[in-house]
């Protein structure tokens, strides 16, 4: 039990989830070293308090005064010196491990990550974009991340790493996964209404399986009709996070039965929801905002190819039976 708590590496413990990255073991050992240090000092403080309380408790009203010193320089040096030395040691180990956590190796496999309210999208080296993060096992993976709107933060607890994603600049995070597993990418920096739903599946495969997945996924719409392809793309790009397709409420208007109807805009104008309206709303979302909704959707300019726009449009038409 104690050995399990002390060594920790890899296994789930009471305090930490399973560690699945190469540096997780180091982080966990440091965590548990600090943990036991805290337990020791807390027990020491509590022990002294309880002991003095029991031993020197005032009985009756009149205080007993025992002769004692008001100062002892040796004691002061001991109880400031020991914490100082321990702190220095923890700082040094913490910094060295941190450098491993933030320094990606040269040969890392690169994936672009894009964060926006309230979804993630990941662009793989062949240009394929998916809302799921798939990575190979046993190979360093580096994410180059940017945000479309506000601050977000990439966090996978099992990887023991985290990095804010900032609009207007790139940040990066890297990890080397030790075994196949599935987990969740969380957003750890508060970003508004659906912050707690800004999650993506994280799947680590063995290298061959990953290659096969990427190849298959990149050609995902082969053999599909446009409506089917559009439905899948609608999921993959996270549209569904804000726009329901079943008439339910959301951050944006639902698309059930909307196509071909006239819509009331927030600026007072109206317009028919047709192909051109959908296209404009994806590429320049703030141009015509439906009344009753906030202008919060970021632009998808450059993130949808022409044929992808057309299958999305086909899918939205199908929702109105057109």
């Amino acid at each position, binding site marked *: 039990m104690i050995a399990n708590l002390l060594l920790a590496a890899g296994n789930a413990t009471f*305090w*930490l989830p399973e560690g699945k990255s190469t540096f997780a073991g180091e*982080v966990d050992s440091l*965590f548990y070293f*600090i*943990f036991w240090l*805290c337990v020791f000092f*807390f027990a020491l*403080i509590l022990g002294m*308090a309880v002991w*003095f*309380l029991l031993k*020197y*408790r*005032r009985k009756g*009203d009149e*205080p*007993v*005064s*025992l*002769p*004692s*010193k*008001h*100062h*002892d320089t040796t004691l*002061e040096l001991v*109880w*400031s010196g020991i*914490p*100082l030395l321990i*702190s220095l040691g923890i*700082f040094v*180990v*913490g*910094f*060295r491990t*941190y450098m*491993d956590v933030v320094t990606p190796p040269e040969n890392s496999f690169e994936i672009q990550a894009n964060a926006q309210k309230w979804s993630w999208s990941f662009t793989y080296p062949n240009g394929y974009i998916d809302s799921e993060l798939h990575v190979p096992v046993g190979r360093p993976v580096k994410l180059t991340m940017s945000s479309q*709107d*506000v*601050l977000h*933060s990439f966090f996978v*607890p099992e990887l*023991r*790493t*985290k990095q804010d994603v*900032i609009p*207007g*600049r790139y940040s990066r995070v890297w990890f080397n996964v030790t075994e196949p597993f599935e987990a969740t990418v*969380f*957003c*750890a920096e*508060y970003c*508004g*209404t659906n*912050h*707690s*739903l800004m999650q993506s599946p994280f799947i680590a495969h063995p290298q061959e399986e990953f290659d096969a997945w990427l190849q298959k996924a990149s050609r995902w719409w082969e053999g599909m009709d446009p409506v089917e392809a559009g439905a899948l793309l609608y999921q993959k790009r996270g549209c569904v996070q804000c726009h329901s397709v079943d008439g339910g409420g959301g951050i944006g208007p639902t698309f059930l039965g909307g196509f071909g109807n006239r819509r009331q805009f927030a600026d007072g104008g109206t317009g028919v929801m047709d192909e051109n309206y959908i296209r404009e709303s994806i590429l320049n979302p703030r141009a015509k905002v439906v009344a009753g909704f906030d202008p*919060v959707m970021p632009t998808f300019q450059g993130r949808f190819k022409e044929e992808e726009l057309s299958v999305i449009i086909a899918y939205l038409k199908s929702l109105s039976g057109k």
Partner: protein
Amino acid sequence: MTTSDAAVGIPREVHHGPPGANYLNCERGLKSWMLTLDHKRIGVMYLASTLAAFLLGGIYALIVRTEHLTPGRTIIDADTYNQMFSLHGAIMVFLFIIPSIPAAFGNFFLPIMLGAKDVAFPRLNLASYYLWVTGAIFAVVSISINAVDTGWTFYTPYSTSTATAVIPIVFGVFILGFSSIFTGLNFIVTVHKLRDKRMGWFQMPLFIWGLYATAVIQILATPVLAITLLLLIVERAFGVGIFDPGLGGDPVLFQHFFWFYSHPAVYIMILPAMGIISELIATYSHKHIFSYKYIAFSSIAIAIFGFLVWGHHMFVAGQSPLINMIFSAITFSVAIPSAIKVFNWLTTMYKGSVKLTTGMWYALLFIWVFSIGGLTGIFLGTLAVDVHLHDTYFVVAHFHYVMFGGTVMALLGGLHHWWPKMFGRMYSEGPAKVATALVFVGFNLTFFTQFIMGSRGMPRRYYMYPDEYTMYHVLSSIGSYIMAAGFFLTAAYLISSLIRGAKAPANPWGASTLEWQVASPPTMHNFEGPVPEPGDPYDYDRVKWDGSTREWHHEPARGAAGH
């Protein structure tokens, strides 16, 4: 305005009232309170007002905790939830914790402890109170328009893009900053200029050292917050690009500015609390505080280090590793003065004569929660470990142990310690002990479970959460209800003591500082006749229990040499 009376702000026409008159009854009517220049009345008004803010912030906290009884929606929707935790944080930090101890107990006791009739600038003192009220009105108005949903940290670019009423509450915080600066300025000048001539720097009670260190931070750090908030308002109102990358600004710059104030602000919250603990431990152990100078200088050291660690809030915000290394190293240095204080408090109990009043219980509970809060700071100061724990419930638990646990335990300890002095009535110890137990159990149940959730990976500010955390969230919510019951019980017996409580003697606890050598409650001018020789503030040999009268009796101080 040329007489020395004007310098201490006592209008000359003021009457002393009938015999037995005190600061509470020497003048009557609402106007006599609203326009008072008496530091004690201003302290009482601050006490009532900040506790009202505590109640409001507490209600928001209970709503948040109730929402978390289930992983999905329980009582409110996501946007309302985001407003609730934002208001909880903003109100607790800016309207309650920062002003509470300095403005309430500091105002009331700093002049008396120094042997003065009032603070140096009584009108400025009243102005600071009205600025607080104005800031509070802005906050409340913004809540009623469209409550802010940015978190209390107002991080850009979210805060410049959200549709909620950011400007009114930010302007409110801006005004509250001035209130804080006025109080700090007043205290510094009072300590320097109105301290009894016979009282040396090292004969000041340690509470004064805590307040002095706090005042220095208030004056130096708060202007940075003010400028930051103004820049935020300018960006939001006029579209000038400062923090918003869409306008060419830098969002991380806001975090630097914000934490340059808000980290020192943590010490604004905790240093006066530590000062109270020094008073409580020494008084109730009836023994000279151990290592006075180390405790005094550790307050100053914390105030100085506090300015140099703001970057540890941004270890994962994209700072360079070199900057992170420097901030991590300096952060560890704060551990040393904190450790010095805790060990000196404990050693003060050694060979003392410990009386377990409610005040002493709260001092011991402070040591409990502050030790956990401080020790868990080691995890967060350690770079590699912080990366995993950053922005999780572990951080939430940590800062609640330090800020809420630390400050509120000390505040409650101080409230029980000074209640008889402030209002002339004794509270009943029975219900007080029950309430203390409820607060203690509730507090630890609420926040210790959050450490566990956090290190397991539960991110903070999450409206919905994964099912695996349900048990911890439910326990945490139950803890918050227990704690609330403790606070309500406290309010009940304290208020009832005002009506039914026994009359308090001048010195019910056998304390040795000057405020216990004036009447309970004090008279208008604090000291009737000459101020007693201050002497060593922790020389308990001259405070004797008289078994026949059942009262504490002060012997004259043995000169300025102290012990």
